[in-house]
Protein backbone atom coordinates (compact mmCIF):
# COMPACT_ATOMS: atom_id res chain seq x y z
CA UNK A 1 0.00 0.00 0.00
CA UNK A 2 1.25 3.44 -0.88
CA UNK A 3 1.56 5.59 2.24
CA UNK A 4 -0.21 8.93 2.33
CA UNK A 5 2.28 11.74 1.88
CA UNK A 6 -0.05 14.71 1.54
CA UNK A 7 0.33 17.53 4.02
CA UNK A 8 -1.35 20.85 4.56
CA UNK A 9 0.93 23.72 5.49
CA UNK A 10 -1.32 26.49 6.72
CA UNK A 11 -3.71 26.09 3.82
CA UNK A 12 -1.17 25.15 1.18
CA UNK A 13 -2.12 21.60 0.27
CA UNK A 14 1.00 19.77 -0.80
CA UNK A 15 0.87 16.28 -2.28
CA UNK A 16 4.00 15.46 -0.36
CA UNK A 17 6.11 17.25 2.24
CA UNK A 18 9.14 18.05 0.09
CA UNK A 19 9.88 21.49 -1.23
CA UNK A 20 12.87 23.63 -2.15
CA UNK A 21 14.53 26.36 -0.09
CA UNK A 22 14.18 29.86 -1.44
CA UNK A 23 17.21 31.21 -3.24
CA UNK A 24 18.66 27.80 -3.95
CA UNK A 25 16.24 26.83 -6.68
CA UNK A 26 15.97 30.00 -8.74
CA UNK A 27 12.50 30.36 -10.21
CA UNK A 28 12.03 26.66 -10.69
CA UNK A 29 13.36 26.72 -14.23
CA UNK A 30 16.99 25.95 -13.70
CA UNK A 31 16.60 22.42 -12.38
CA UNK A 32 14.07 21.28 -14.96
CA UNK A 33 16.68 19.34 -16.93
CA UNK A 34 17.40 17.25 -13.83
CA UNK A 35 14.04 15.97 -12.71
CA UNK A 36 10.33 16.50 -12.98
CA UNK A 37 9.53 19.36 -10.61
CA UNK A 38 5.91 18.28 -10.52
CA UNK A 39 6.98 15.40 -8.31
CA UNK A 40 7.62 17.84 -5.46
CA UNK A 41 5.05 18.97 -2.93
CA UNK A 42 5.92 22.58 -3.61
CA UNK A 43 8.61 24.82 -5.06
CA UNK A 44 9.67 27.90 -3.11
CA UNK A 45 11.20 30.50 -5.40
CA UNK A 46 13.80 33.24 -4.94
CA UNK A 47 13.22 36.15 -2.57
CA UNK A 48 11.29 38.86 -4.35
CA UNK A 49 11.11 42.56 -3.52
CA UNK A 50 9.08 45.47 -4.87
CA UNK A 51 11.84 46.94 -7.03
CA UNK A 52 14.42 44.91 -8.92
CA UNK A 53 17.61 44.52 -6.86
CA UNK A 54 21.20 44.13 -7.94
CA UNK A 55 22.33 42.21 -4.89
CA UNK A 56 25.76 42.39 -3.33
CA UNK A 57 29.27 42.63 -4.69
CA UNK A 58 31.07 39.40 -5.55
CA UNK A 59 32.44 37.15 -4.17
CA UNK A 60 29.01 36.16 -2.98
CA UNK A 61 29.84 32.62 -1.99
CA UNK A 62 32.55 30.91 -0.03
CA UNK A 63 32.75 27.32 0.95
CA UNK A 64 33.22 26.44 4.61
CA UNK A 65 33.52 23.03 6.28
CA UNK A 66 30.35 21.15 5.28
CA UNK A 67 28.68 24.44 4.48
CA UNK A 68 28.66 27.58 2.42
CA UNK A 69 28.43 31.24 3.27
CA UNK A 70 26.38 33.24 0.81
CA UNK A 71 25.80 36.94 0.50
CA UNK A 72 23.68 37.17 -2.61
CA UNK A 73 21.79 40.10 -1.16
CA UNK A 74 18.36 39.42 -2.59
CA UNK A 75 19.23 40.01 -6.24
CA UNK A 76 15.88 39.68 -8.01
CA UNK A 77 14.03 41.20 -10.92
CA UNK A 78 11.26 42.71 -8.77
CA UNK A 79 7.70 41.58 -8.19
CA UNK A 80 6.26 42.96 -11.42
CA UNK A 81 8.72 41.00 -13.48
CA UNK A 82 7.86 37.87 -11.49
CA UNK A 83 4.17 38.34 -12.07
CA UNK A 84 4.63 38.97 -15.78
CA UNK A 85 7.35 36.51 -16.68
CA UNK A 86 7.34 33.70 -14.15
CA UNK A 87 3.79 33.43 -12.81
CA UNK A 88 2.38 32.18 -16.13
CA UNK A 89 4.96 29.40 -16.01
CA UNK A 90 4.12 28.66 -12.38
CA UNK A 91 0.50 28.27 -13.43
CA UNK A 92 1.47 25.43 -15.76
CA UNK A 93 3.08 23.38 -13.00
CA UNK A 94 1.41 20.53 -11.13
CA UNK A 95 3.15 21.51 -7.94
CA UNK A 96 2.45 24.38 -5.58
CA UNK A 97 4.58 27.49 -6.03
CA UNK A 98 5.34 29.54 -2.95
CA UNK A 99 6.88 32.96 -3.48
CA UNK A 100 9.42 34.16 -0.95
CA UNK A 101 9.04 37.88 -0.33
CA UNK A 102 11.16 40.53 1.34
CA UNK A 103 11.27 44.25 1.87
CA UNK A 104 13.16 47.12 3.48
CA UNK A 105 10.07 48.44 5.23
CA UNK A 106 6.91 46.92 6.60
CA UNK A 107 5.04 48.71 3.83
CA UNK A 108 7.20 47.15 1.14
CA UNK A 109 6.39 43.65 2.44
CA UNK A 110 2.70 44.50 2.33
CA UNK A 111 2.93 45.99 -1.14
CA UNK A 112 4.69 42.93 -2.55
CA UNK A 113 2.13 40.67 -0.89
CA UNK A 114 -0.71 42.68 -2.31
CA UNK A 115 0.76 42.61 -5.82
CA UNK A 116 0.92 38.80 -5.66
CA UNK A 117 -2.59 38.40 -4.35
CA UNK A 118 -4.83 36.58 -6.75
CA UNK A 119 -2.08 35.95 -9.29
CA UNK A 120 -2.76 32.54 -10.84
CA UNK A 121 -0.04 30.01 -10.21
CA UNK A 122 0.94 31.25 -6.77
CA UNK A 123 -0.16 29.08 -3.85
CA UNK A 124 1.29 30.96 -0.93
CA UNK A 125 3.83 33.41 0.39
CA UNK A 126 6.90 32.81 2.46
CA UNK A 127 7.87 35.98 4.28
CA UNK A 128 11.60 36.35 4.69
CA UNK A 129 12.21 38.31 7.89
CA UNK A 130 15.53 36.63 8.39
CA UNK A 131 17.87 37.46 5.52
CA UNK A 132 21.27 38.31 6.97
CA UNK A 133 22.51 39.69 3.67
CA UNK A 134 20.77 43.00 3.25
CA UNK A 135 21.46 46.22 5.10
CA UNK A 136 17.89 47.24 5.74
CA UNK A 137 15.03 44.91 6.52
CA UNK A 138 15.61 41.20 6.49
CA UNK A 139 17.16 40.02 9.72
CA UNK A 140 16.34 43.29 11.47
CA UNK A 141 12.64 42.44 11.34
CA UNK A 142 13.10 38.84 12.36
CA UNK A 143 15.18 39.39 15.44
CA UNK A 144 12.55 41.04 17.61
CA UNK A 145 9.11 39.63 18.41
CA UNK A 146 7.44 43.02 17.95
CA UNK A 147 8.78 43.73 14.46
CA UNK A 148 8.30 40.13 13.39
CA UNK A 149 4.66 40.42 14.39
CA UNK A 150 4.31 43.76 12.64
CA UNK A 151 5.52 42.38 9.30
CA UNK A 152 3.29 39.35 9.71
CA UNK A 153 0.22 41.44 10.36
CA UNK A 154 0.93 43.75 7.46
CA UNK A 155 1.37 40.86 5.03
CA UNK A 156 -1.69 39.03 6.32
CA UNK A 157 -3.68 42.22 5.86
CA UNK A 158 -2.54 42.53 2.27
CA UNK A 159 -3.23 39.06 0.91
CA UNK A 160 -5.65 36.17 0.92
CA UNK A 161 -2.83 33.73 0.25
CA UNK A 162 -1.53 31.49 3.04
CA UNK A 163 1.34 33.27 4.78
CA UNK A 164 4.36 31.31 5.99
CA UNK A 165 6.82 33.36 8.01
CA UNK A 166 10.48 32.41 7.77
CA UNK A 167 12.40 32.67 11.01
CA UNK A 168 16.03 33.34 11.75
CA UNK A 169 18.20 31.15 13.98
CA UNK A 170 20.29 34.21 14.93
CA UNK A 171 18.22 34.95 18.00
CA UNK A 172 18.37 34.27 21.71
CA UNK A 173 14.87 32.88 21.89
CA UNK A 174 13.30 31.56 18.69
CA UNK A 175 10.20 30.33 20.55
CA UNK A 176 9.35 33.85 21.58
CA UNK A 177 9.52 35.07 17.96
CA UNK A 178 7.50 32.09 16.77
CA UNK A 179 4.78 32.84 19.32
CA UNK A 180 4.64 36.50 18.34
CA UNK A 181 4.31 35.58 14.67
CA UNK A 182 1.61 33.02 15.49
CA UNK A 183 -0.37 35.60 17.40
CA UNK A 184 0.00 38.04 14.53
CA UNK A 185 -1.87 35.59 12.34
CA UNK A 186 0.72 33.62 10.37
CA UNK A 187 -0.51 30.40 8.79
CA UNK A 188 2.78 28.58 9.10
CA UNK A 189 6.48 28.94 9.83
CA UNK A 190 9.61 28.19 7.85
CA UNK A 191 12.86 27.60 9.67
CA UNK A 192 15.71 28.08 9.57
CA UNK A 193 17.17 30.80 7.43
CA UNK A 194 20.96 31.01 7.39
CA UNK A 195 23.25 31.55 10.35
CA UNK A 196 25.20 34.78 10.35
CA UNK A 197 28.81 33.95 9.57
CA UNK A 198 32.01 35.18 8.05
CA UNK A 199 35.26 34.05 6.47
CA UNK A 200 38.53 35.91 6.22
CA UNK A 201 41.04 35.60 3.41
CA UNK A 202 44.31 35.33 5.29
CA UNK A 203 46.37 36.04 2.20
CA UNK A 204 44.72 39.32 1.39
CA UNK A 205 43.78 39.99 5.02
CA UNK A 206 40.24 40.95 4.36
CA UNK A 207 36.81 39.37 4.46
CA UNK A 208 36.25 36.90 1.63
CA UNK A 209 32.71 38.00 0.83
CA UNK A 210 32.05 41.27 -0.91
CA UNK A 211 29.41 41.92 1.73
CA UNK A 212 31.78 41.05 4.65
CA UNK A 213 29.26 38.82 6.46
CA UNK A 214 27.08 36.16 4.95
CA UNK A 215 24.62 33.43 5.73
CA UNK A 216 25.78 29.94 6.59
CA UNK A 217 23.83 27.01 5.15
CA UNK A 218 24.37 23.38 4.26
CA UNK A 219 24.99 20.23 6.31
CA UNK A 220 27.03 22.16 8.88
CA UNK A 221 23.92 23.92 10.21
CA UNK A 222 21.64 20.89 10.39
CA UNK A 223 21.96 20.36 14.17
CA UNK A 224 21.02 23.99 14.81
CA UNK A 225 18.05 23.72 12.47
CA UNK A 226 16.74 20.49 13.97
CA UNK A 227 16.98 22.04 17.41
CA UNK A 228 15.07 25.14 16.25
CA UNK A 229 12.28 23.00 14.77
CA UNK A 230 12.12 20.93 17.95
CA UNK A 231 11.81 24.04 20.12
CA UNK A 232 9.30 25.85 17.93
CA UNK A 233 7.12 22.76 17.47
CA UNK A 234 6.72 22.64 21.23
CA UNK A 235 5.98 26.36 21.49
CA UNK A 236 3.34 26.96 18.82
CA UNK A 237 0.55 25.18 16.96
CA UNK A 238 1.53 26.34 13.47
CA UNK A 239 2.75 23.90 10.84
CA UNK A 240 6.46 24.14 10.19
CA UNK A 241 8.51 23.83 7.02
CA UNK A 242 11.86 22.60 8.29
CA UNK A 243 15.12 23.29 6.51
CA UNK A 244 18.82 23.74 7.07
CA UNK A 245 21.32 21.23 5.78
CA UNK A 246 18.94 18.60 4.48
CA UNK A 247 20.65 16.45 1.86
CA UNK A 248 19.13 13.04 2.39
CA UNK A 249 15.85 11.48 3.42
CA UNK A 250 17.43 10.62 6.77
CA UNK A 251 18.13 14.31 7.33
CA UNK A 252 14.57 15.22 6.34
CA UNK A 253 13.15 12.62 8.71
CA UNK A 254 15.07 14.18 11.59
CA UNK A 255 13.20 17.42 10.90
CA UNK A 256 9.84 15.70 10.57
CA UNK A 257 10.34 13.74 13.79
CA UNK A 258 11.36 16.99 15.48
CA UNK A 259 8.09 18.59 14.40
CA UNK A 260 8.26 19.73 10.78
CA UNK A 261 5.18 19.11 8.64
CA UNK A 262 7.17 19.71 5.47
CA UNK A 263 10.84 20.04 4.60
CA UNK A 264 12.82 22.12 2.16
CA UNK A 265 16.01 21.16 0.38
CA UNK A 266 18.44 24.04 -0.17
CA UNK A 267 22.19 23.96 -0.56
CA UNK A 268 22.08 20.21 -1.22
CA UNK A 269 20.61 20.85 -4.68
CA UNK A 270 23.91 22.47 -5.66
CA UNK A 271 25.73 19.25 -4.97
CA UNK A 272 23.05 16.86 -6.17
CA UNK A 273 20.57 18.53 -8.48
CA UNK A 274 18.13 15.69 -7.82
CA UNK A 275 18.46 16.05 -4.05
CA UNK A 276 14.86 17.12 -3.44
CA UNK A 277 13.53 14.16 -5.39
CA UNK A 278 15.95 11.76 -3.69
CA UNK A 279 14.73 13.06 -0.34
CA UNK A 280 11.13 12.46 -1.34
CA UNK A 281 11.81 8.93 -2.58
CA UNK A 282 13.79 8.14 0.57
CA UNK A 283 10.96 9.31 2.79
CA UNK A 284 8.52 7.09 0.89
CA UNK A 285 10.83 4.13 1.34
CA UNK A 286 11.18 4.78 5.08
CA UNK A 287 7.41 4.92 5.46
CA UNK A 288 7.00 1.65 3.60
CA UNK A 289 9.77 -0.11 5.47
CA UNK A 290 8.37 1.04 8.78
CA UNK A 291 4.77 0.31 7.77
CA UNK A 292 3.66 3.86 8.39
CA UNK A 293 0.55 4.68 6.44
CA UNK A 294 0.56 8.43 6.81
CA UNK A 295 3.51 10.82 7.02
CA UNK A 296 1.56 12.87 9.54
CA UNK A 297 2.09 10.10 12.11
CA UNK A 298 5.76 11.03 12.14
CA UNK A 299 5.41 14.77 12.60
CA UNK A 300 6.86 15.56 16.01
CA UNK A 301 7.01 11.87 16.88
CA UNK A 302 10.49 11.93 18.39
CA UNK A 303 10.08 11.22 22.05
CA UNK A 304 12.13 12.59 24.87
CA UNK A 305 13.68 9.62 26.61
CA UNK A 306 12.36 9.10 30.10
CA UNK A 307 9.22 11.18 29.51
Amino acid at each position, binding site marked *: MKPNLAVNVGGIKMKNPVTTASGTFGFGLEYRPY*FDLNRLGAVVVKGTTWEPRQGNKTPRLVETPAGILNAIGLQNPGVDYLVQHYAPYFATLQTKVIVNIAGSTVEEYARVAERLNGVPGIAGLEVNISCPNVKKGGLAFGSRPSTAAQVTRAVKGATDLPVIVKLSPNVTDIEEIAKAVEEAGADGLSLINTLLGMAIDIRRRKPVLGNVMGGLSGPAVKPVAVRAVWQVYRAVKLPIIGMGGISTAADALEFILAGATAVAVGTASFINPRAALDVLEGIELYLKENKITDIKELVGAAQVPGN
Partner: protein
Amino acid sequence: MVVSKVSDAKVAAVFPVAPETYYMELEAPEIARLAVPGQFVHVSCSSAHDPLLRRPLSIHMVSRQQGIVALLFRVVGKGTAILAQKRTGDVVNVMGPLGRGFTLPLPGSRVALAAGGIGAAPLVFLAQELANLKCPITVYLGAKNKKSLLCDGQFVQLGAEVVIATDDGSLGFQGTVPDMMRRHRDWRRTAMTYLCGPKAMMQEISAMLASADVPGEVTLEEKMGCGVGACLSCAVKIAHHGQVRQQRACADGPVFPSWQVVWD
Protein backbone atom coordinates in the same frame (compact mmCIF):
# COMPACT_ATOMS: atom_id res chain seq x y z
CA MET B 1 12.11 17.53 -21.21
CA VAL B 2 13.92 15.58 -18.55
CA VAL B 3 17.39 14.64 -19.77
CA SER B 4 19.64 13.69 -16.96
CA LYS B 5 22.76 15.79 -17.13
CA VAL B 6 24.34 14.11 -14.13
CA SER B 7 26.35 10.94 -14.44
CA ASP B 8 28.87 8.74 -12.76
CA ALA B 9 31.85 8.78 -15.06
CA LYS B 10 34.66 6.28 -14.91
CA VAL B 11 38.19 7.66 -14.91
CA ALA B 12 39.79 6.32 -18.08
CA ALA B 13 43.15 7.99 -17.50
CA VAL B 14 44.75 10.47 -15.16
CA PHE B 15 48.32 11.72 -15.04
CA PRO B 16 50.38 14.82 -14.31
CA VAL B 17 51.43 16.87 -17.34
CA ALA B 18 53.19 19.78 -15.66
CA PRO B 19 53.94 20.84 -12.08
CA GLU B 20 50.68 20.55 -10.12
CA THR B 21 48.72 20.07 -13.32
CA TYR B 22 46.76 16.97 -14.22
CA TYR B 23 45.13 15.59 -17.29
CA MET B 24 42.08 13.38 -16.71
CA GLU B 25 39.89 11.42 -19.11
CA LEU B 26 36.36 10.53 -18.11
CA GLU B 27 34.01 8.07 -19.75
CA ALA B 28 31.02 10.34 -20.24
CA PRO B 29 29.49 9.67 -23.64
CA GLU B 30 26.43 11.87 -23.13
CA ILE B 31 28.56 14.87 -22.25
CA ALA B 32 30.97 14.15 -25.07
CA ARG B 33 28.05 14.05 -27.48
CA LEU B 34 26.47 17.32 -26.33
CA ALA B 35 29.42 19.52 -25.40
CA VAL B 36 30.60 22.54 -27.33
CA PRO B 37 33.86 24.40 -26.67
CA GLY B 38 33.76 26.82 -23.74
CA GLN B 39 31.32 24.74 -21.75
CA PHE B 40 32.25 23.20 -18.45
CA VAL B 41 31.41 20.28 -16.23
CA HIS B 42 30.62 20.52 -12.53
CA VAL B 43 32.62 17.82 -10.80
CA SER B 44 31.96 16.18 -7.47
CA CYS B 45 35.35 15.61 -5.86
CA SER B 46 34.15 13.71 -2.83
CA SER B 47 30.92 12.16 -1.64
CA ALA B 48 31.59 13.45 1.89
CA HIS B 49 30.40 16.91 2.91
CA ASP B 50 33.93 18.31 2.91
CA PRO B 51 34.67 19.77 0.44
CA LEU B 52 30.98 20.35 -0.04
CA LEU B 53 30.54 21.89 -3.45
CA ARG B 54 31.25 20.62 -6.92
CA ARG B 55 34.16 22.15 -8.82
CA PRO B 56 33.66 23.71 -12.25
CA LEU B 57 36.21 22.55 -14.81
CA SER B 58 36.26 23.43 -18.47
CA ILE B 59 35.95 20.74 -21.04
CA HIS B 60 39.48 20.42 -22.33
CA MET B 61 38.89 17.97 -25.15
CA VAL B 62 36.28 15.45 -26.20
CA SER B 63 36.32 12.31 -28.23
CA ARG B 64 32.77 11.78 -29.36
CA GLN B 65 33.58 8.39 -30.88
CA GLN B 66 35.10 7.08 -27.66
CA GLY B 67 32.65 8.91 -25.43
CA ILE B 68 35.54 10.52 -23.59
CA VAL B 69 35.65 13.95 -21.97
CA ALA B 70 39.09 15.23 -21.01
CA LEU B 71 39.86 17.75 -18.28
CA LEU B 72 43.03 19.64 -17.56
CA PHE B 73 43.29 21.07 -14.10
CA ARG B 74 45.67 22.68 -11.71
CA VAL B 75 45.79 21.58 -8.08
CA VAL B 76 45.09 24.70 -6.06
CA GLY B 77 43.10 23.45 -3.08
CA LYS B 78 41.22 20.62 -1.46
CA GLY B 79 38.94 19.66 -4.32
CA THR B 80 41.49 19.52 -7.07
CA ALA B 81 43.91 17.71 -4.74
CA ILE B 82 41.32 14.96 -4.24
CA LEU B 83 40.67 14.75 -7.97
CA ALA B 84 44.38 14.43 -8.67
CA GLN B 85 44.48 11.36 -6.43
CA LYS B 86 41.84 9.48 -8.39
CA ARG B 87 42.98 6.42 -10.21
CA THR B 88 41.92 4.77 -13.40
CA GLY B 89 38.66 2.94 -12.80
CA ASP B 90 37.51 5.25 -10.02
CA VAL B 91 34.16 6.90 -10.52
CA VAL B 92 33.62 10.64 -10.52
CA ASN B 93 30.18 12.22 -10.57
CA VAL B 94 29.89 14.98 -13.17
CA MET B 95 27.15 17.36 -14.25
CA GLY B 96 27.25 18.80 -17.69
CA PRO B 97 27.81 20.08 -20.18
CA LEU B 98 26.97 23.39 -18.54
CA GLY B 99 27.05 27.00 -19.63
CA ARG B 100 27.22 28.70 -22.99
CA GLY B 101 30.26 28.12 -25.13
CA PHE B 102 32.23 30.12 -27.64
CA THR B 103 30.68 31.57 -30.76
CA LEU B 104 32.23 29.77 -33.70
CA PRO B 105 33.29 31.86 -36.71
CA LEU B 106 32.44 31.18 -40.33
CA PRO B 107 34.48 28.29 -41.71
CA GLY B 108 37.88 29.39 -42.91
CA SER B 109 37.99 32.63 -40.92
CA ARG B 110 41.28 33.62 -39.35
CA VAL B 111 41.11 33.50 -35.54
CA ALA B 112 43.39 34.02 -32.57
CA LEU B 113 43.45 32.34 -29.18
CA ALA B 114 45.14 33.88 -26.16
CA ALA B 115 45.75 31.64 -23.18
CA GLY B 116 47.47 32.25 -19.87
CA GLY B 117 48.45 29.32 -17.67
CA ILE B 118 45.66 26.83 -17.08
CA GLY B 119 43.49 29.03 -19.33
CA ALA B 120 44.73 26.91 -22.19
CA ALA B 121 42.44 24.10 -21.06
CA PRO B 122 39.18 25.04 -22.83
CA LEU B 123 40.97 26.50 -25.83
CA VAL B 124 42.21 23.10 -26.97
CA PHE B 125 38.63 21.90 -27.42
CA LEU B 126 37.93 25.16 -29.23
CA ALA B 127 40.98 24.69 -31.45
CA GLN B 128 39.74 21.18 -32.34
CA GLU B 129 36.48 22.65 -33.62
CA LEU B 130 38.18 25.57 -35.31
CA ALA B 131 40.50 23.16 -37.08
CA ASN B 132 37.46 21.23 -38.28
CA LEU B 133 36.16 24.52 -39.64
CA LYS B 134 39.50 25.00 -41.40
CA CYS B 135 40.15 28.26 -39.61
CA PRO B 136 43.75 29.48 -39.61
CA ILE B 137 44.63 29.78 -35.93
CA THR B 138 47.26 31.78 -34.07
CA VAL B 139 47.70 30.85 -30.42
CA TYR B 140 49.26 33.33 -28.01
CA LEU B 141 50.32 31.03 -25.23
CA GLY B 142 51.65 32.30 -21.92
CA ALA B 143 53.07 30.58 -18.87
CA LYS B 144 55.26 31.29 -15.89
CA ASN B 145 58.12 29.31 -17.36
CA LYS B 146 59.01 26.60 -19.83
CA LYS B 147 58.15 23.81 -17.41
CA SER B 148 54.65 25.02 -16.72
CA LEU B 149 53.74 25.70 -20.36
CA LEU B 150 50.58 23.82 -21.27
CA CYS B 151 49.07 22.42 -24.46
CA ASP B 152 51.63 23.83 -26.93
CA GLY B 153 52.01 20.41 -28.52
CA GLN B 154 48.27 19.98 -28.88
CA PHE B 155 47.84 23.32 -30.57
CA VAL B 156 50.70 22.60 -32.98
CA GLN B 157 49.18 19.23 -33.80
CA LEU B 158 45.93 20.95 -34.68
CA GLY B 159 47.82 23.04 -37.21
CA ALA B 160 47.87 26.27 -35.24
CA GLU B 161 50.65 28.79 -35.25
CA VAL B 162 51.82 28.93 -31.64
CA VAL B 163 53.60 31.97 -30.22
CA ILE B 164 54.93 31.57 -26.71
CA ALA B 165 55.57 34.01 -23.89
CA THR B 166 57.02 33.11 -20.49
CA ASP B 167 57.38 35.36 -17.50
CA ASP B 168 61.00 34.37 -17.04
CA GLY B 169 61.87 34.10 -20.70
CA SER B 170 62.79 30.42 -20.36
CA LEU B 171 60.92 29.86 -23.62
CA GLY B 172 59.81 32.29 -26.33
CA PHE B 173 59.09 35.92 -25.63
CA GLN B 174 59.95 37.14 -22.15
CA GLY B 175 56.93 38.89 -20.72
CA THR B 176 53.17 38.70 -20.62
CA VAL B 177 50.79 37.58 -23.31
CA PRO B 178 49.40 41.11 -23.84
CA ASP B 179 52.96 42.43 -24.20
CA MET B 180 53.70 39.80 -26.79
CA MET B 181 50.45 40.54 -28.62
CA ARG B 182 51.31 44.21 -28.78
CA ARG B 183 54.34 43.29 -30.85
CA HIS B 184 52.71 40.54 -32.86
CA ARG B 185 49.96 42.23 -34.81
CA ASP B 186 48.29 39.34 -36.65
CA TRP B 187 45.36 39.19 -34.24
CA ARG B 188 44.18 42.56 -35.52
CA ARG B 189 43.06 40.87 -38.70
CA THR B 190 41.06 38.06 -37.11
CA ALA B 191 37.34 37.38 -37.20
CA MET B 192 37.50 36.62 -33.48
CA THR B 193 40.01 36.41 -30.67
CA TYR B 194 39.21 33.95 -27.88
CA LEU B 195 40.66 34.56 -24.42
CA CYS B 196 41.09 32.44 -21.36
CA GLY B 197 43.46 33.15 -18.51
CA PRO B 198 43.99 35.34 -15.47
CA LYS B 199 41.55 38.19 -15.11
CA ALA B 200 44.20 40.87 -15.49
CA MET B 201 45.39 39.34 -18.75
CA MET B 202 41.90 39.08 -20.17
CA GLN B 203 41.06 42.61 -19.12
CA GLU B 204 44.17 44.00 -20.76
CA ILE B 205 43.70 42.10 -24.00
CA SER B 206 39.98 42.98 -24.07
CA ALA B 207 40.94 46.64 -24.03
CA MET B 208 43.42 46.05 -26.84
CA LEU B 209 40.78 44.25 -28.85
CA ALA B 210 38.28 47.02 -28.25
CA SER B 211 40.65 49.73 -29.40
CA ALA B 212 41.56 47.68 -32.48
CA ASP B 213 37.86 47.02 -33.08
CA VAL B 214 38.34 43.26 -33.12
CA PRO B 215 35.62 41.09 -31.63
CA GLY B 216 36.68 38.83 -28.79
CA GLU B 217 35.25 36.37 -26.33
CA VAL B 218 36.42 35.79 -22.79
CA THR B 219 35.71 33.05 -20.29
CA LEU B 220 34.89 34.38 -16.83
CA GLU B 221 35.55 32.57 -13.60
CA GLU B 222 33.48 33.22 -10.52
CA LYS B 223 33.03 31.12 -7.41
CA MET B 224 30.12 28.86 -8.27
CA GLY B 225 27.45 27.25 -6.15
CA CYS B 226 24.88 25.50 -8.29
CA GLY B 227 26.46 25.83 -11.74
CA VAL B 228 23.02 25.96 -13.35
CA GLY B 229 21.83 29.50 -12.76
CA ALA B 230 19.75 28.92 -9.66
CA CYS B 231 21.72 30.56 -6.85
CA LEU B 232 23.08 33.82 -8.30
CA SER B 233 26.48 33.32 -6.67
CA CYS B 234 28.41 33.86 -9.87
CA ALA B 235 27.15 37.28 -10.89
CA VAL B 236 29.21 39.17 -13.45
CA LYS B 237 28.54 42.59 -14.89
CA ILE B 238 27.78 42.69 -18.56
CA ALA B 239 27.06 45.92 -20.45
CA HIS B 240 24.31 45.66 -23.02
CA HIS B 241 23.00 48.58 -25.05
CA GLY B 242 24.57 50.98 -22.58
CA GLN B 243 22.98 49.29 -19.59
CA VAL B 244 24.98 47.23 -17.07
CA ARG B 245 23.21 44.02 -16.19
CA GLN B 246 24.10 41.20 -13.88
CA GLN B 247 24.51 37.91 -15.58
CA ARG B 248 25.29 34.48 -14.25
CA ALA B 249 28.73 33.23 -15.22
CA CYS B 250 27.49 29.65 -15.06
CA ALA B 251 24.35 29.83 -17.12
CA ASP B 252 24.66 33.00 -19.22
CA GLY B 253 28.42 32.38 -19.64
CA PRO B 254 31.12 31.46 -18.81
CA VAL B 255 31.86 32.86 -22.29
CA PHE B 256 30.99 36.53 -22.83
CA PRO B 257 31.79 39.07 -25.53
CA SER B 258 35.05 40.73 -24.52
CA TRP B 259 33.75 44.24 -25.15
CA GLN B 260 30.70 43.80 -22.94
CA VAL B 261 32.42 42.72 -19.76
CA VAL B 262 32.52 45.32 -17.00
CA TRP B 263 35.78 44.53 -15.20
CA ASP B 264 36.13 45.70 -11.65
